């Protein structure tokens, strides 16, 4: 279990407990946190679960797999700290992770 904080574009903050093994994307979808569309359902095929990760967390996350950076090319306003939240699998190590959800996904 990890506490994940999602900052949405309307300047609201949502902190929720997400079970280990779920993705950061699923944590948002299951808790009705707006702004993560996840059109493809977590298959790294759409870039609509794009988030900005708080800088201090960047090094602590699992490395990007092949294909994630390619999909981020398609994302809305990608930055250095962009990740696809479907690829961030929650574990105890991610307790306290904070992500910002972009103003839109497409």
């Amino acid at each position, binding site marked *: 279990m990890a506490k994940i904080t999602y900052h949405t574009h309307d300047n609201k903050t949502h902190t929720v407990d997400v079970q280990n093994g779920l993705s950061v994307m699923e944590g948002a979808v299951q808790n009705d946190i707006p702004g993560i*569309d996840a*059109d*493809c*359902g977590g*298959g790294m*095929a*759409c*870039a*609509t679960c794009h988030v900005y990760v708080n800088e201090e967390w960047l090094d602590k996350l699992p490395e990007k797999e092949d294909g994630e*950076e*390619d999909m981020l*090319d*398609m994302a*809305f*306003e*990608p930055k*250095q700290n962009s990740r696809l939240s479907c690829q961030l699998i929650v574990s105890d190590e991610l307790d306290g992770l904070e992500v910002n959800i972009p103003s839109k*996904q*497409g």
Partner: protein
Amino acid sequence: MNKTDVLIIGAGPTGLFCAHQLGIIGLKCEIVDNLDKVGGQCIELYPDKPIYDIPAVPECTGEELTNNLLQQIKPFNINFHLNQRVEEVKKIDNHWYVKTNSGKEFTVASIVVAGGVGSFEPRKFSVKEAEKFENTSLFYSIKDKNIFKDKTITIFGGGDSALDWAIELSNHSKVNLVHRRDEFSGAQASVDKVKELQSKGKLDLYTKFQLSSVIGDKNIESVAIKHDDETTKEIKSDYVLGFFGLIMQLGPILNWGLNLDKKTIQVNTENFETNLPGIFAIGDICSYPGKLKLILSGFHEGALAARGCFKYARPDEKLRFEFTTTSKAAQERLGVKK
């Protein structure tokens, strides 16, 4: 006006298999899709990627699955209406009237929405001014490449479309290719070709840059691009092209009066009918307790929806359950009766 039993919206695997199930029970259907080809997400998102969970097919690609489905429905000679999106749906007497954005009209007994996550639309630039120039000097697809002759074109993107057009247009235009990182997702051969053109001075490559603004009054005069290190550059440009792939948008479906749950349509699990009698929804676009977004679920949903359509198309007839192995009628429809 096209008059038929059923209109299927969406030519992905679910829509295609539903057409098969309609054909087997003797109903006619036509299929509309916004893409320029059949196959839906399978063909647009992962034509070359393997799928391992189609029952009795240990492994196939999105393209193979699509081709096999097309072969399976060949006996039914189904009409496809591609490159168009359904805009309007309304009930007239006891049938449904449907109109697409290219003006094609249908009168049908029922509609099966197999629209996946919505219709594919190009992803657009996030900067505001881009909209002002869209379709005059800023494009997300190319219809007539001749307009670019002897002009300066700035292309954004790192996939195959961006690379292929950069190479092609560099023959008769001055091309700037801008991409947000040094690596490209397009084919290596194209990347090599772009680098070769760059070294010969036939193309200018700007990596780690993204669009920051489009400058011009009536026509585009230049674009400002911003580097990862926050420095900006202004490059002269007559045309701007953006190739960021496609995004799925639900679009007009939102306005048809269907009960929605986020971006999906609520259905019953008996025949996948929606709250509007005669409109069914199957595949990724439908939702019900326990819904799994798998192709195999879409096949099951399509088989039941097809049977649900029967009572609207043939109100005076009774549908008898039959197996294709033994049904003479089904085999006649498949053209395999000996």
